[in-house]
């Protein structure tokens, strides 16, 4: 890539001065931003659309409904079993404190 004065002169004379709109730069950036946003929306659509399509099918929707409700009830039962176990231990300790003076003093402290 040697610096060729003749070529440079030829390029300078052949390129005419094209007028650029005032907000040319801003508009270019707006277009880039809009394109990025559209691409992101397409990503979300790509993720949710198959699921939404399945939800529109009654059989799948019914199965999903039963699984969600059953899962929630199952999780609640497990958590309740833990809570009940803790409650039993606390009530047992409360009863022992009515019998054992050491346990009572420990509670009173």
């Amino acid at each position: 890539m040697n610096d060729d004065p003749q070529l440079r002169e030829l390029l300078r004379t052949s390129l005419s001065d094209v007028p650029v709109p005032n907000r040319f730069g801003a508009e270019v950036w707006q277009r880039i931003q809009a394109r990025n946003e559209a691409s992101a929306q397409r990503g979300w659509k790509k993720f949710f659309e198959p699921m939404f399509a399945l939800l529109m099918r009654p059989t799948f929707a019914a199965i999903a409904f039963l699984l969600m409700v059953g899962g929630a009830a199952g999780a609640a039962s497990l958590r309740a079993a833990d809570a009940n176990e803790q409650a039993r231990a606390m009530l047992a300790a409360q009863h022992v404190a009515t019998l054992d003076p050491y346990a009572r003093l420990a509670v009173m402290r």
Partner: protein
Amino acid sequence: MKKPVLILLAMLAAAAIAYFASYYCATREARRMFSVSDGSAWLRTEFALTDEQARAVAALQSDYEPRCMEMCARITKSRERLEKLLHESKTMTPELEAAMREVSQTQADCRAATLAQTFAISAHMAPEQAVRYRAMIAERILPGTLPHDTATHR
């Protein structure tokens, strides 16, 4: 696009309702037992006491209450005396030895009274419940002092 979103939201709402309803129903009994402050509801449910048995146990507990308070006072007094002597003494003294003996004696008396009350309560229970009750109390008041089999098969 709106309809599937609504379906999904309805499913999530139904799952949330199922969760809270299940939890509420499954813990209702425990909440009821906690609402009775003296723990009698727990004893009654846990050891399947009849009305008559529950009344007999309540009477026993009522009679035992002043004795338990008296023992609490004795424990506190003997401990305080021992702590005071430990703080003041520079060598082992006969008073310190006597205070230590008093603490041990108080502990033995309290354990004996607690066990006697346990046996008295369990006498009002069905045999298999009585065994379970005594094992539970022994495990809590005498941890590590009884072999497991002794506690459960007595």
